[in-house]
């Protein structure tokens, strides 16, 4: 029933990115037997949790989940506690601790807030895989302040080949920007005096919501000196990818939605433009006849 999963993915590609969580939950309700396929292929906004041991915030997703519990990258503990929860081997955990610290610095420099988490796990073929998660939310202090959220999920796999390592990176960015505006028109005061008892002046109220999700992949080879090279290598790849995707969202995707609005309605008077063009044609035609 591959086409059933295809239909679900097609549906998710069409419905608003702002309602991904709700829609995935509904789809799982309809087809519980495809829950794993769906959760494995549709990225959802990351959940923010607090490490009970360290008080630090971390991000929860399918990659640090075991049953109903989530593992914190800071204390390596599951919450709610698990006696036999899956944890990385000591060697990989050492790398995971270093990666979390490095990406925490990355987070501070690019996000100036928010939260980050890195989770690593061993692969059967001897390599390992990991996920780098970043999230920032802007909550407005008043009605007309902008709000928004950024979630990025970078899943990578790596295999060492001598002094080189091959990396496969799949990155998803989910973004939402909301602006609310309201204004009382300038004619308000002038019209108050006319006493007709009805609403006076001009009032506006509105909201603009731009949301999007996109996924990109890349495969690259990088040199390795020791295991910590995996952090600098994936760091450079994630940084490069986020710069590229942020640029695409801002310049290409959001720009395109604005252009489409102008394709629907024109600020300029189309009728007078049309008349002008016809007049021009007529003139050219007359000149041609002479």
């Amino acid at each position: 029933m591959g086409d059933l999963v295809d239909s679900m993915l097609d549906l998710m590609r069409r419905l608003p990115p702002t309602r991904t969580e709700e829609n995935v939950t509904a789809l799982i309700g309809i087809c519980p037997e495809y829950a794993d396929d769906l959760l494995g292929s549709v990225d959802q906004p990351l959940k923010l949790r607090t490490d009970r041991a360290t008080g630090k915030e971390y991000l929860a997703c399918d990659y640090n989940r075991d049953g109903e519990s989530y593992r914190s990258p800071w204390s390596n503990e599951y919450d709610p506690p698990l006696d036999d929860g899956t944890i990385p081997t000591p060697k990989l955990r050492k790398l995971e601790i270093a990666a979390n610290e490095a990406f925490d610095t990355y987070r501070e420099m690019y996000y100036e807030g928010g939260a980050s988490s890195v989770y690593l796990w061993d692969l059967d073929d001897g390599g390992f895989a990991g996920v780098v998660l970043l999230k920032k939310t802007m909550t407005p202090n008043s009605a007309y302040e902008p709000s928004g959220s950024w979630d990025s999920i970078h899943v990578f796999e790596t295999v060492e080949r001598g002094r080189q390592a091959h990396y496969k990176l799949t990155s998803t960015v989910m973004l939402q920007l909301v602006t609310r505006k309201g204004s009382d028109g300038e004619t308000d005061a002038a019209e108050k005096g006319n006493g007709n008892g009805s609403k006076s002046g001009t009032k506006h109220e509105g909201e603009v919501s731009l949301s999007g999700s996109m996924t990109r992949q890349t495969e690259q080879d990088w040199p390795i000196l020791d295991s910590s090279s995996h952090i600098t290598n994936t760091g450079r790849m994630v940084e490069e990818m986020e710069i590229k995707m942020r640029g695409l969202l801002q310049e290409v995707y959001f720009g395109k939605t604005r252009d489409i609005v102008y394709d629907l309605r024109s600020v300029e008077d189309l009728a007078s433009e049309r008349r002008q063009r016809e007049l021009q044609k007529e003139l050219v035609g007359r000149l041609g006849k002479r």
Partner: protein
Amino acid sequence: MNANGRIEAACSFLLQSPPGEINDVLNDVRNIISDDDSLHEGVLPALKEYNLTQFMTVDVPGTDHQSIISEAGRVEATEGGQERFIDPRSKTTFLFDHLSLEASDSQPAEPDADSEPFRAALEKATLTYLEAHFHDGVASIFSVKQTTNQFIIQIVANKYNPSNYWAGRWRSEYTIDLNEHTVDGKVFANVHYYEQGNVQLSTTHTISLSLPAAIVTSSPGSSASKILALIENEEGKYQTSLNDTYQEMGEKTFKGLRRALPLTRQKIDWDKVLGYKLGAELASSKGMFGGS
């Protein structure tokens, strides 16, 4: 999930359809639910709601124009589950099928003699406005049922371009009340761009205007064109402000979430990040990343 829950979920998916993609969403939902019999019956209310709120357009039988399917044009009487809508422009009513989106059984409809002159004047002015500012726009102008001094102007413009992965819809609705001297408007824009991604714009904007007494008391023709001039001005201002909002979002909100580059204006030196974090005893990160 029981049968009712599945239908409810299906209805919710349909109501979220981006412009021009309701059939794609319906096909997906059909595959997922795989029970056509209960689905058809169950999702009909959602299809109806979608058509009415999204200002679905229909070719009016026996004319060369389209009209808008909406609550304002719904005629009370329904026959055999089908609904009848009015097209005031051709003075006809027709049956509308919410699934096939087709009109049939056209019947003449006598307009209300008191309100028709002003409605017709508004229609003329709106169609001129439509020509001037909309690519592929459709407008319908209704007299509000059982009143003489209230009118509703509806405008919809759609552009569907599935081969280039985008679609957009602009809707506006204005309720003109000549007793209260007011115009209340709502404008909605929805855009979906889905080439290797899923990006959606959704805007709402409400406008309340009071009409100067001079506009209300002039002849229908001059009054209507003045009202449309006000609407033209408001929509033009709104579109310009939308452009400013884009600018603001790009420069402020986007940057507030994630900077394009760190404060240092350089990419990160990962060797230093690692060296520092892995055990260096530097007290602060100042000067670590070059520059600043």
